[in-house]
């Protein structure tokens, strides 16, 4: 088991510094693409106006992937003055496929070398740069990812920097972007079989602004509140479900889960795993934020945002235990609580 745990009472190593990620703002921007829209000549909505509305500036010559990142990040930080060391931790399952596809098509089909700006924009931290610049984050910027739950790896590293004491505020986000033509995009993300015909595509930009201290500086966060939205009290990683269940069975863990805790069902969990988790924890309700009727690669961030929002049916619960897995059975756990 690998511990990113915030609370020393639950940590197995005594030298673990107590760290909590207080979520002071959150934003989930999701573009759903209906089937009828998908069949249009230009199915993807133009984002330039939305970029300008959310950032206050017309940022030119950026790709759609970067536009999505800027929209989500700026909406998240709206009305909040960032700390001087605020850092950006950005992730994506597949990065900017659109610009890379254009480069490859230009090179191989058209035998044209890449335009300088296209090449520079193909670097993943082009998005980090534009986000940091547009929100005024003057700390570090990192593009980090893993194949199956990108935002979890970004959360892990921001936790690490908080524990080091080098950062007190972090803007953590993940972006999934579609590229045209959409039938090719379906092939790339493997949502192109007969069984997938009813699934609508989506693209998303999910962001959390977290702080090492709860919010009390009088600012208003993106929900119009002056309070912390919630706290990530634990980030846990396990190499298999057995060790995850053993940890969940620990008395100290179970004592931390109030009656109204919901199980946040990560994208890759199957029914058997959900059942085993409910049995181990005694949790009665699941929070299924991943809808089967639409798809984008990495919705964990959306799950956290929706849990914290007042609009979500399951959001009356005070605590969410979010669990996800990957094809080799590794598990990630997030414990999110509301104030």
């Amino acid at each position, binding site marked *: 088991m*690998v*511990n*990113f745990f915030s609370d020393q009472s639950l940590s197995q*190593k005594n030298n*673990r*510094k107590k760290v909590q990620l207080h979520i002071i703002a959150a934003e989930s921007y999701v573009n759903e693409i209906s089937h009828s829209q998908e069949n249009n000549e230009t199915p993807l909505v133009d984002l330039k106006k939305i970029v300008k509305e959310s950032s206050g500036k017309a940022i030119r010559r950026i790709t759609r992937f970067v536009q999505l990142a800027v929209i989500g990040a700026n909406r998240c930080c709206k009305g909040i003055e960032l700390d001087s060391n605020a850092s950006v931790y950005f992730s994506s*399952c*597949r*990065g900017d*496929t659109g610009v*890379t*596809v254009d*480069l*490859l*098509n230009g*090179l*191989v089909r058209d*035998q*044209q*070398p*890449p*335009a*300088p700006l296209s*090449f*520079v924009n*193909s*670097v993943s*931290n*082009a998005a*980090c*740069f534009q986000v*940091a*610049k547009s929100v005024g*984050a*003057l*700390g*570090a*910027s*990192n*593009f*980090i*990812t*893993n*194949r199956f739950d*990108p935002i979890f*790896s970004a959360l*892990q*590293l921001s936790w*690490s*920097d908080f*524990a*080091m004491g*080098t950062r007190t505020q972090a803007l953590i986000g993940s972006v999934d972007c579609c590229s045209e033509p959409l039938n*090719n995009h379906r*092939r*790339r*993300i493997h949502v192109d079989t007969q069984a997938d015909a009813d699934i609508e595509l989506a693209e998303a930009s999910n962001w959390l602004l977290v702080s090492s201290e709860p919010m009390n500086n009088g600012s208003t966060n993106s929900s119009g509140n002056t309070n912390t939205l919630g706290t990530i009290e634990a980030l846990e*990683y396990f190499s298999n479900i057995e060790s995850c269940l053993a940890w969940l069975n620990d008395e100290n863990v179970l004592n931390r889960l109030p009656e109204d805790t919901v199980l946040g069902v990560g994208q890759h969990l199957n029914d058997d795993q959900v059942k085993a988790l409910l049995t181990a924890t005694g949790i009665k309700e699941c929070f299924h934020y991943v809808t089967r009727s639409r798809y984008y690669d990495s919705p964990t961030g959306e799950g956290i945002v929706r849990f914290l929002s007042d609009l979500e049916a399951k959001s009356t619960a005070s605590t969410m235990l979010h669990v996800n897995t990957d094809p*080799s059975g*590794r598990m990630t756990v997030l414990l999110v609580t509301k104030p």
Partner: protein
Amino acid sequence: MNPIHIIGTGLHSALGKTTQECVTALRASNPFDAETGANVKNLSHYACSLPEHEMTIPYYLLKGVSENDVQTRLHAVLFDVIAQATSEAELSEEDFETIGLFVGSSSFEIADEEERFKQTVNDDDSLALAECGMGNLSERIRKHLNINGPDFTFNTACTSSANAMLYAGQLIDQGVIDYGLVVAVEFVNETTTYGFHGLQLLSPTALLPFDDRRDGLVLGESCSAAVLCNQDIASQHLKNKTRSVVKQSSESKENISIDNNVSSVIRLLGGANLCDTHSMSITHEEGDIVANVITQALENSALTPEAISIVKCHGTATPGGDLAEANGVKRAFSQSNHFPVCTAIKPFIGHTLGACGLSEFILFCCALQQGFLPATPTIASEGNQLGVVLNQNISLKENKLNGLEALKDSAFLLNYFGFGGNNTSLVVDIHHFENAPKSTAVKGDEHG
């Protein structure tokens, strides 16, 4: 941060196929020599035409691998380099179960994708970028080695593997993982070659950092790996290693040198990462962000500028990049009682982009461990306009570093700066174990 120990390395670059081969070649290498300098890469088989005089460029290609053998690069070279590092670290099967994997690259497997797409482009159902997961390379490595620990992929341009090192060290220091395997990958590909050509950043001749004649960078490819751990594990590892050397010595009845690689270890002391929002392709020429990241790296390592005796510069030899770094380094050390010796690795292996973090780290640190400092005679010598002089002599004594003894109380700074305003500095030292057996050698190189 508590010191993090590097107990295994692997490297394949233009200098050689293993770490030791590369370090030995580094000592003897002359960047201007046709034998040991850059290769000449002909772009005639590439997809796009360029003016004739631009169809050959200097490029530091991997030693001993055919330029066109994409598959060998991606799989055989990568896994061989990882095997070098993990076997030196003597990792067990249980260690692989929980080791953290940290991959840093700019271009990942794009060379493979270019090749595949070229072969299928005329098919009815051809598709560019058929496989497109940012974490795919990490997954490949995990499956190959049966790694079940957490994995992280860093894509921050030229600071990718430097950031991978930094976070691997942090997570070890915080007790999250016991071991970290850092892997850095950068292979030649058309997208990158044409991309830098289009930005007019490539030199037609040679890579001359900080030199008044500098006119751009020379690309290179490299693949490297390192195993990191905390002090307790490193001490045990040293004991085991020393025991086997002593045993070997008594069995062969010869006095075998217990060289500096057994009695000393490279340690990562700390580092920092900052974003400069001045420009996508270059950090601010005034160098204030460079100075800030150096200062923060030192603070994170609990050191003052006086502790640094050598700086491994990023040194891309681009007009603006070197200017920013020169200004930043001068600013960071302006209050110090001495200006550190400056060196650069890119004249020997080229600019290996996302892999330069770890590849240059290994070459620089192993060179010091073996008692010399990479030298670039006639490049950036005294009196150049930027005021940063690169060391002209491999001898530590000639650089007023008084040999390995002086280095024992010293630390070293390594700079890396990348597109997207990403700036990273790492701080390292060479730690000598006090209770290590003294050399009884007749064999072995003379050091210091």
